[in-house]
């Protein structure tokens, strides 16, 4: 496959364009999608560039179809992806469930918009619960929550490798602000950074004569007996738990002696980071912790942070009404540190909001 960037170069662009270029650089072969704001420019730029790089695209009749065509495509051995948001993410939970059940290496980019219902087309962090635990399954998914354009680029490349290495559906969880913001980043071809892209391979449509060289492949996702399904889910669970330690990613800053730790993810963690800088300058012992993977969640790492700092309080800040909060609470069950919250559903959070809240907690 043709290298997309002959050398690493800096660029200035929006998050959606970044996503399209990242998928190209990662060697994605086909995108299936359906228009919904705020992810549209991922499709716009993919469709502009795909023919130049011999990649495919289909605009399907809805998000259900976009998700299922991706399922079919990856079954046939192609590196396929989709992108959606809000109500589209709701519709895609059905194919995402198929990907969980059949262990399909599907990659989806989610640019969160306001909810519930059609909500706003602008921004939120309200698709955390849906993206991590949506569907009628057990949340056997890998979810990267990005904060910068560079991360959108890096984690899409990484995400394809994660999906094809572990065969769990993989999500790049962005938001409308990241989708539309403009900022510089470095574009590169993975091999130039020493990143080896995992080659896709077919699950059906295999080579060889059936009955002579091989048996037919029958892929299954529905079972007759409770016990059969139990075996399957327990096996998937065990595999998911086994790989979780190597998958979890997080960032922490100034937590060693922090009296208050701000926990936030995605674009809000940028505000938390600024707030920590400003508050430290004022002599306040504040640190921040950011899960990069929301599934699997860096639970032990957050617990370690709480324990080593002896933090008196956590502040959970999110552009949702408690979705990250619930995730954190269940993941660090047993910790008794009091938690306060800054819930601003569907609204941006800036450093000032966090600093004001912290000062009210002192």
């Amino acid at each position, binding site marked *: 496959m043709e290298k997309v960037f002959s050398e690493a170069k800096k660029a200035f662009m929006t998050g959606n364009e970044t996503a399209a270029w990242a998928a190209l650089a990662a060697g994605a072969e086909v995108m299936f999608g359906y228009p919904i*704001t705020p992810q549209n420019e991922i499709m716009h730029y993919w469709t502009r560039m795909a023919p130049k790089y011999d990649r495919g695209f289909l605009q399907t009749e809805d998000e259900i179809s976009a998700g299922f065509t991706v399922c079919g495509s990856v079954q046939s051995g192609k590196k396929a992806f989709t992108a959606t948001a809000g109500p589209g993410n709701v519709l895609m939970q059905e194919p995402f469930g198929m990907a969980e059940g059949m262990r399909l290496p599907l990659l989806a980019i989610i640019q969160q918009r306001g909810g519930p219902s059609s909500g706003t087309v602008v921004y939120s962090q309200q698709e955390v619960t849906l993206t991590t635990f949506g569907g009628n399954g057990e949340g056997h998914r890998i979810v990267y929550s990005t904060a910068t354009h560079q991360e959108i680029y890096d984690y899409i490349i990484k995400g394809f490798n994660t999906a094809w290495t572990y065969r769990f559906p993989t999500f790049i969880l962005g938001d409308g602000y990241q989708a539309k*913001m403009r900022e510089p980043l470095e574009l590169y071809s993975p091999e130039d950074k020493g990143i080896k892209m995992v080659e896709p391979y077919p699950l059906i449509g295999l080579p060889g004569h059936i009955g002579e060289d091989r048996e037919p492949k029958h892929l299954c996702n529905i079972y007759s007996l409770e016990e059969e399904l139990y075996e399957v889910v327990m096996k998937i669970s065990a595999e998911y738990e086994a790989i979780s330690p190597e998958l979890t990613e997080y960032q922490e800053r100034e937590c060693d002696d922090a009296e208050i730790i701000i926990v936030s993810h995605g674009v809000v963690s940028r505000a938390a980071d600024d707030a920590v800088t400003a508050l430290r300058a004022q002599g306040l012992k504040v640190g921040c912790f950011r899960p990069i993977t929301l599934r699997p969640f860096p639970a032990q790492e957050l617990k370690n942070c709480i324990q080593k700092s002896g933090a008196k309080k956590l502040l959970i800040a999110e552009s949702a009404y408690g979705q990250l909060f619930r995730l954190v609470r269940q993941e660090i069950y047993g910790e008794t540190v009091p938690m306060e919250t800054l819930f601003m559903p569907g609204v*941006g959070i800036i450093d000032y909001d966090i600093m004001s809240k912290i000062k009210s907690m002192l």
Partner: protein
Amino acid sequence: MEGERVLEAYVGEYASGKSEISINRALELLGQGRTVTLVDLDTVEPFYTLRSLKPQLEGMGLQLISFSREDAFGLGETGAMLNPQARWALRRSGDIILDIGYGVYGARTLNLVEGANESKELKVLAVINYSRPLTGNRERIREYILDLGRVDAIVANTHLGDETTIDIIEDGNAEIMHVARELNIPVDFITVDEKLQGSIGVEVSGIPVKFIHRFMPAAMW
């Protein structure tokens, strides 16, 4: 006023800087004591562009044709909404600056403005930032400009946001100017963030440099 007025349309890639340059150009003219109307013709999700800056810009004395928050209540996507006033913008007196949104139709968006095709005063300027991949080498710039349709002049706006250096500006703009010469389209001016005033001349190869104030970051957060 007839014959003297400035009618300019800025077209360009998504995030090429056309909104920024439109605002700065409108304010420049306003500063000369002229009457100026700035028209937001970004048909792709206009709520992201000038709308949130409307009160500020109107406070400075600009006439602005764009939707305000209240106008768009309950409209959600509003991707293809055209303000009726924009359609008739050229009938207004005074200077008119049109900010044309990105899209595959390029400068053809001007068809939405009555009289744009017939106007002899109207000038279409393509805004190019070399730090964007689709206009990141000579061949792509050429392809891009030719695809835009009508282009009367080019604005070289190479930058990398907060990571802009003089080298990035000069190297990128040199490539843009090269293509402009080949296509025989003049580069009207070069735009540089006002923060870099002093580190770069007021003229490059005879082309004036305009130092611009960046309004758009305030439009995002």
